[in-house]
C-alpha cells in the first residue's frame, strides 16, 4: 500500500515506529473466499489463544489491591488543597491577596478579608468548592506565599462535598504544626532546603 | 393412571393456550401462547408413543416456524395490539353448525371403522427406526415430493422476501425515502 505522505520530522527517533502493511481488501467473491481460507488455516486464531494462555501461565499480575496496597504518588500530585502555616510563628501564611480567587478558572475559590485590630489584612472566610474545582493547580502556582498548595489526599469520599471546602479543614492543624510535621510542597517554587542560610539579610536601613 | 393425568393436564393446557391465541388482542400473547401450545401438543405425541413425531414437532414448530412468525411480527410492526374484525352474527351460527357436524362425525368414526386393520403395524423396534423404515419404503415418493416442495418453498421465500433487500433505508435521505414510498403507493396497474 502506498503511503501518501511521510510524517514530518517530529523529533521521534526512527526506530520506534514501523508502518503497518495492510493488504488491499478483496472485492471479488473469490478473493474474499481466499482470504477466509487463508485466515482460517494460517492459525491466527490460535496465536490469539496462545497469547492469553501465556499470560495466564506467566501469572504476571499487575493489580494493585487498593485499600491495602497503594501506589506511591508523586510530590507534586494535585489532590485536595492544603493551607500551610508559617514555621516561625504558627500563624497562617495566607495574606489575603486574592490572587488565587482571581486566577481560578472554574470560579470555585471564594474569600472574604478584613482589616483586623493590628491593621493587618486578615482572611475571615475562605472556601474552595471542590464540586467545581478541576484541580488545575493555578491557585497553588500563583500564590506568592506558598500558602495554598495541593496535598496528596486523593481519597475524598464523604457524605457530602461540603466536608472538604472549609478553610479550617484544609489548614494544617496546630498540634501537627507544633510537632513540626507540616509537609512542604516539593514542586516548582517550593522552599528549598537550607533556605535560611541562602537568603541574605536585608539591611535594616534599607 | 399417569397417562390419564398427563392427558388431562396437557389437554387443559393446550386448549387454554390456543384459546388465548385466538382471543387475545395482544399479538405477543398470541405468539407465546401458540408456541407453548405446540410444545404441549408434542407431549401428546410422546404419550402416544410417537417419539420421533414429538421431537419433530418441537424442533420444527417451536424451533423454526414460530421463530419465523416472530420474525415476521417484528417485520410487520405488529408486536403489540392487533385489530379485530367486527362481530358477525352469521359467523357464530356457521361455526356452531360446523362444530356440531364435526363432533358427530368424530364420535361415529371409531364405531364405523371398528374392523380396520393396520397396514403398517407397529413392530418391536424403536419408533424412530420404524418411522424411518416406512418413510423410506412405502412413502419414499411422497417424502421426496415433500422435500422438493420444501425446497421450492424456501427458494420462493427467499425470492419474494429478498427483493430490494439491498436498498438501505438508513443510508437514504428523507426525500429519497419519501419518493420511494410514493412510487410504491401509486396504483401501478391503472391505465
Amino acid at each position, binding site marked *: 500500500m502506498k503511503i501518501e505522505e511521510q510524517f514530518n520530522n517530529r523529533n521521534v527517533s526512527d526506530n520506534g515506529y514501523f508502518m503497518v502493511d495492510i493488504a488491499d481488501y478483496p472485492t471479488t467473491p473469490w478473493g474474499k473466499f481466499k482470504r477466509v481460507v487463508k485466515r482460517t488455516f494460517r492459525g491466527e486464531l490460535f496465536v490469539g489463544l496462545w497469547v492469553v494462555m501465556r499470560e495466564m501461565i506467566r501469572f504476571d499480575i499487575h493489580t494493585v489491591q487498593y485499600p491495602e496496597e497503594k501506589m506511591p504518588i508523586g510530590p507534586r500530585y494535585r489532590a485536595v488543597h492544603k493551607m500551610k502555616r508559617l514555621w516561625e510563628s504558627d500563624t497562617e501564611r495566607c495574606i489575603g491577596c486574592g490572587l488565587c480567587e482571581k486566577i481560578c478558572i472554574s470560579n470555585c475559590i471564594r474569600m472574604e478579608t478584613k482589616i483586623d485590630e493590628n491593621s493587618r489584612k486578615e482572611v475571615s472566610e475562605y472556601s474552595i468548592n471542590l464540586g467545581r474545582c478541576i484541580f488545575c493547580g493555578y491557585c497553588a502556582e500563583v500564590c506568592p506565599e506558598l500558602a495554598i498548595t495541593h496535598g496528596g489526599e486523593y481519597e475524598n469520599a464523604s457524605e457530602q462535598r461540603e466536608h472538604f471546602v472549609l478553610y479550617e479543614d484544609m489548614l494544617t492543624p496546630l498540634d501537627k504544626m507544633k510537632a513540626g510535621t507540616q509537609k512542604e510542597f516539593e514542586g516548582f517554587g517550593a522552599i528549598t532546603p537550607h533556605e535560611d542560610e541562602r537568603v541574605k539579610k536585608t539591611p535594616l536601613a534599607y | *393412571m399417569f397417562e*390419564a393425568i398427563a*392427558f388431562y393436564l396437557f*389437554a387443559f393446557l*393446550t*386448549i387454554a393456550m*390456543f384459546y388465548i*391465541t*385466538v*382471543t387475545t388482542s395482544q*399479538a405477543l400473547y*398470541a405468539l407465546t401462547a*401458540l408456541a407453548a*401450545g405446540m410444545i404441549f401438543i408434542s407431549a*401428546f405425541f410422546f404419550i*402416544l*408413543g*410417537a417419539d420421533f*413425531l414429538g421431537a419433530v*414437532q418441537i424442533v*420444527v*414448530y417451536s424451533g423454526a416456524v414460530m421463530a*419465523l*412468525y416472530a*420474525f*415476521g411480527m417484528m*417485520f*410487520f410492526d*405488529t408486536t403489540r395490539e*392487533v*385489530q379485530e*374484525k367486527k362481530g358477525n352474527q352469521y*359467523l357464530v351460527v356457521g*361455526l356452531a353448525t360446523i*362444530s356440531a357436524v*364435526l363432533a358427530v362425525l*368424530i*364420535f361415529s*368414526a371409531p364405531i364405523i371403522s371398528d374392523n380396520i386393520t*393396520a*397396514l*403398517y*403395524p*407397529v413392530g418391536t423396534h424403536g419408533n424412530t427406526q*420404524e*418411522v424411518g423404515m416406512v*418413510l423410506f419404503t412405502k*412413502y419414499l415418493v*411422497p417424502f421426496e415430493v*415433500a422435500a422438493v*416442495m*420444501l425446497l421450492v418453498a*424456501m427458494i*420462493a*421465500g*427467499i*425470492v*419474494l*422476501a429478498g427483493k430490494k433487500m439491498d436498498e438501505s433505508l438508513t443510508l437514504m435521505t428523507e426525500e429519497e425515502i419519501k419518493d420511494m414510498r410514493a412510487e*410504491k403507493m401509486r396504483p401501478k396497474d391503472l391505465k
Partner: protein
Amino acid sequence: MIEIGLNHYLVLSTILFAIGLVGVMKRKNLLMLFFATEILLNSVNISFAAISHYYGDLTGQMFAFFVIAIAASEVAVGLGLLIVWHKRYNNIDLDFMTRMKG
C-alpha cells in the same frame, strides 16, 4: 374416565379445531390468521397420531409428518408474500386486501 381411549383424543382434536376455526373467522390481521391455521393443522396432527397409535398403524404418523412439512413450506411462502405486500402497501389487514381489487 381413567382409561384414555381414541375418543378422548378425537374430542380434544375437535375442540382445538373449533378454536382454530374461530380464529380464522375472527382475525383481521393476516399474521394472526396464519396462527389460526397452524392451530387447525396441529389439531389434525393430534388425531392422526392418536389413530396411528390405537390402530397400531404408522400411516397416521406419516401423514402428520407431511402435514408438518406443508406447514413449514406454508410459512416460508406465506411470509414471503406478506413481506412483498407489506412493502408495497404498508398494511397486512385482511379487509384492506379485499378492498384492493385487481
